[in-house]
């Protein structure tokens, strides 16, 4: 919350400008943060398009690296991991919403989901399980984006209210000598 100081009028105007700049900077930051979730969603959709095509545009791994990586884990294990991940991610985001935390971590989820695409790809079952990973990704990222959006909107509302209060005080106290003499604080 922005609190203007009750010092000399000249200093107060300077203070007002400083506080106003800070508030505007916070508002710009919040606005850009609210849109950050959309970048994560776009990245996920790009990864999904690649996975839908079975990553055909990527060169195949050399045999020595394939042998180094070894056998892929069983499909049932990857399925179980996907369910546990989706459940945990949803719980995490809901708990952040409940606590009012501004963290979203959308980019991390894009990384995890791409990892699942890679695991299914190496297990040669990507075509069968693509939609499960896609649905999990849409759910987690949509929830994360909704949380971030509501948090940023609430913070923006508070900052704009503070800015409006600041502007009203400046209008009332600063720039007009008659307004200043009728200020009850000055007597």
């Amino acid at each position: 919350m922005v609190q203007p100081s009750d010092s000399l009028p000249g200093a107060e105007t300077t203070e007002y400008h400083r506080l106003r700049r800070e508030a505007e900077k916070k508002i710009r930051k919040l606005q850009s943060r609210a849109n950050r979730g959309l970048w994560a969603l776009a990245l996920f959709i790009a990864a999904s398009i690649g996975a839908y095509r079975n990553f055909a545009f990527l060169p195949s791994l050399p045999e020595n690296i394939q042998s180094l990586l070894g056998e892929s884990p069983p499909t049932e294990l990857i399925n179980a991991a996907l369910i546990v991940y989706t459940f945990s991610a949803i719980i995490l985001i809901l708990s952040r919403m409940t606590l009012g935390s501004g963290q979203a971590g959308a980019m991390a989820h894009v990384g995890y989901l791409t990892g699942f695409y890679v695991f299914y790809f190496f297990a040669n079952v990507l075509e069968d399980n693509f939609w499960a990973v896609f649905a999990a990704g849409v759910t987690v990222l949509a929830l994360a984006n909704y949380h971030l959006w509501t948090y940023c909107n609430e913070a923006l509302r508070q900052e704009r209210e503070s800015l409006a209060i600041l502007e009203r005080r400046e209008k009332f106290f600063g720039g007009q000598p008659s307004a200043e003499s009728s200020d009850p604080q000055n007597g």
Partner: protein
Amino acid sequence: MFKSICAKAIVPVALTVTGFVVVCCLLLYTTIKTDLTNDAVKHSSALADTIVKSTRYAMLRSDWDTIGNIIQNIGEQKGVEHVRIFNKKGLVMFSEDPSEVDHFVDKKSAGCASCHAGPVPSATLKDMQKARHFVNERQVKVLAITAPIYNEPACFSAACHFHSPEQKLLGTLDIGLDQAPLTKTLSVMGGRMLVFSFMVLVLTVGGVAALLRKNVFQPIRTLTDFTEKAAGGNLTHCFPEIGGELERLAHHSRQLLHQRDHAMTRLQELEEEPDPVPKAKRG
């Protein structure tokens, strides 16, 4: 719309439940599909082994008519798309389609490539490796099984003709089965899961939304409307009947409004009262 209490309560719940149910249903469908397909392959492999054993005696007696008849009868069965036996060189010896007989099989085709990929062909394959899935020229989805016919002591010591003991493989049985029943089963199962998921979502999300609306949102809206009108000076309509914890809020709002009305009435009375101290006597 998304900033209201209603949206903040319903949207996360709807997203969470819908997404999780969809993910679980998709994974369950995929797992069941894999299990059913693997069972179909095992069943088909067992069928192919049965056919090989059925033709064994006729082969030992070099009875080509009987073998041809067996293959022809099997090929006429509903659900069998193709059945043929070819020797180790890939020459089709018996087939339900007479036009294929005495023609060579393409070693690079889907069913042959797994054995013939390297310079030395594989002699043994697991069940899943023997299976291949494709769509034939009649646009039918086919599961084809390749069952090898191994050389046995009786084979290389029979009186009619004999094979060299060093020869491991005498030929291969290739049978293709129509996958329409499996596809239909999967489709029915998918439909049932879809209906079930839909019902679960309607009950969960709809039930939560309906209960929240009845017990929380409607009382809050009623109270909000009343206090908004009362703040504007309109106290003519009745105070809403609200139950639960909101009743305390309603009670306190009512108290505040009464106190405000009382104060305003008292202020009006004071303003209307004549001044008890005359102007001349003041100061």
